[in-house]
């Protein structure tokens, strides 16, 4: 399957990546080649095979319901691009 510029725009939008007009064609070409590689998968019939989402065949590990964390706001926000009054600041979110 090969991707066109519209596909690339849609994917880039979902992934929140700005892709310039002049880059679209190159992306479409490279990504299509990678998809070509990926589609070698279709050579194998996987009917009835259970998907394997993890190498570990085990169940959920739990922790006890205890508060173990302390306030580290000052440390964490010292590396924030923009923070004020204890809040992370971002451009206005329009609802």
């Amino acid at each position, binding site marked *: 399957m090969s*991707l066109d510029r519209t*596909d*690339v725009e849609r*994917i*880039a939008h*979902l*992934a*929140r*990546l*700005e*892709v310039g007009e002049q880059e679209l064609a190159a*992306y479409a070409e*490279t*990504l299509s*080649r*990678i*998809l*070509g*590689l*990926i*589609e*070698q*998968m*279709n*050579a*194998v019939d*996987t009917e009835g*095979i*259970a*998907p*394997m*989402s*993890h*190498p*570990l065949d*085990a169940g*959920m*590990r739990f*922790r006890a319901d205890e508060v173990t964390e302390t306030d*580290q706001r000052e*440390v*964490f926000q010292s*590396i*924030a*691009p*923009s923070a004020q009054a204890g809040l*992370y600041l*971002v*451009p*206005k*979110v*329009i609802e």
Partner: protein
Amino acid sequence: MHRPFGSLILPMSMHEKSLAELSTALNNKYISSHELTLAYLDRIEAHRDLNAFVTVDRARALKQAQAADARLKSGQSNVLTGIPIAQKDIFCTDGLPTTCGSRMLANFVAPYDATVIQKFNAAGCVLLGKTNMDEFAMGSSNETSFFGPVHNPWDRRCVPGGSSGGSAAAVAARLAPAATGTDTGGSIRQPAALTGITGLKPSYGRVSRYGMIAFASSLDQGGPMARSAEDAALLLNVMAGFDPRDSTSVDRPVPDYTRTLDESVAGLRIGLPREYFGEGLGTEVGRVIEAALDQYRKLGAKVVEVSLPNSRLAIPCYYVLAPAEASSNLARYDGVRYGYRAPEYADLWEMYAKTRAQGFGAEVKRRIMIGTYALSAGYYDAYYLKAQKLRRLISGDFDRAFEHCDVIMGPTSPTTAFEFGSKTDDPVAMYLSDIYTISVNLAGLPGMSIPAGFDGSRRPIGLQIIGRYFDEARLLNVAHKYQQVTDWHLRVPEGF
């Protein structure tokens, strides 16, 4: 196994010693951790052109060395107390930059230590520096690093492999006694092969992933990169173990990996997957692997042919699953709480899109897009689900092969180190560098690469050894026995 020291040990020659030898020297006070650390810091400085390190904090390293010396004096020391270790810049280190080879995190000073780092700290090791790597561990040549490529000490025109290229080059050039790496599709083994060192990717779940910046969560695993299997065993003793902060870490006791190093390999059944010796394998690589197998035969091992029929599908399968997980794992880099934020934007949408477009390099963006596409509505079944089913088949191949053998051997990489730029324009060609390593990650098995010879241009060749789940001790034993009768692992590139 400890070679006795001469009475006079000069720090100048320290870089030629094994971890066990260094440990003896430190514990017998032939040398201080401070002297040792300083010697390595000077070597790093002298070979800065390799670009193996992203961050070196001399003052901090020396201070840690002094603390180690105090500990050595007090008798509260471990085997590795006072030994400087280079850490791949994917492990978060409290108070030091942790960049993951990306512009996105170029300014990121982690406010906590990864579990692996904590374990090295607890053992009294010195953090020598943070090593260069492919951006977010995505690459097989170290050319995707925001901080520029690492040079292969065997041939500076060549790549050191990736993604743990900085760690590999640092150990190969003896700029560090040992280092850590991480391996998602071959990122420890392939650079180990290309730089002539010993690298081990443990079983999935053996080493904690907490604080190790995620690329593909169901495949990532940290492990040692060292001069020898013996050194790797000492490192794995520190790194391995259950971590309650990592839900995918396995609660199994950690054996002393050095204890079984010397066990005989007579009668060992070595499986040779016929699929690893076909088209695409360099002839010189093939010859070296054959020679290594002969060496094992001399040691009493038996070589049997096995089959991994679905291994040709490992690359397509991996290039769905790893990018899919990565596309989600890397969504947190949004310029809100830490890391890079674009300087100019009109609104929230632009802040996201520009921050991520500027903060990530080309290969990372490609993989995010492939992964996003594979998970998107209408394509999930055809790509993601299909790949998960193939993963089951690939994993099943190993189960069947291990009914006939104890370890599997083959080449680590189809070729030796290649020249800069030779594959950068063709991601698909680059992806094929990991053709023999990727299936091991998909199955969650342990895999190793050890130096086994050179090609005609004196570029190292690695032998891959794959084991059963949680059979690291056996891999190290098998590798160690080989290194007892060969000296490939002791070869040092010219000028180092």
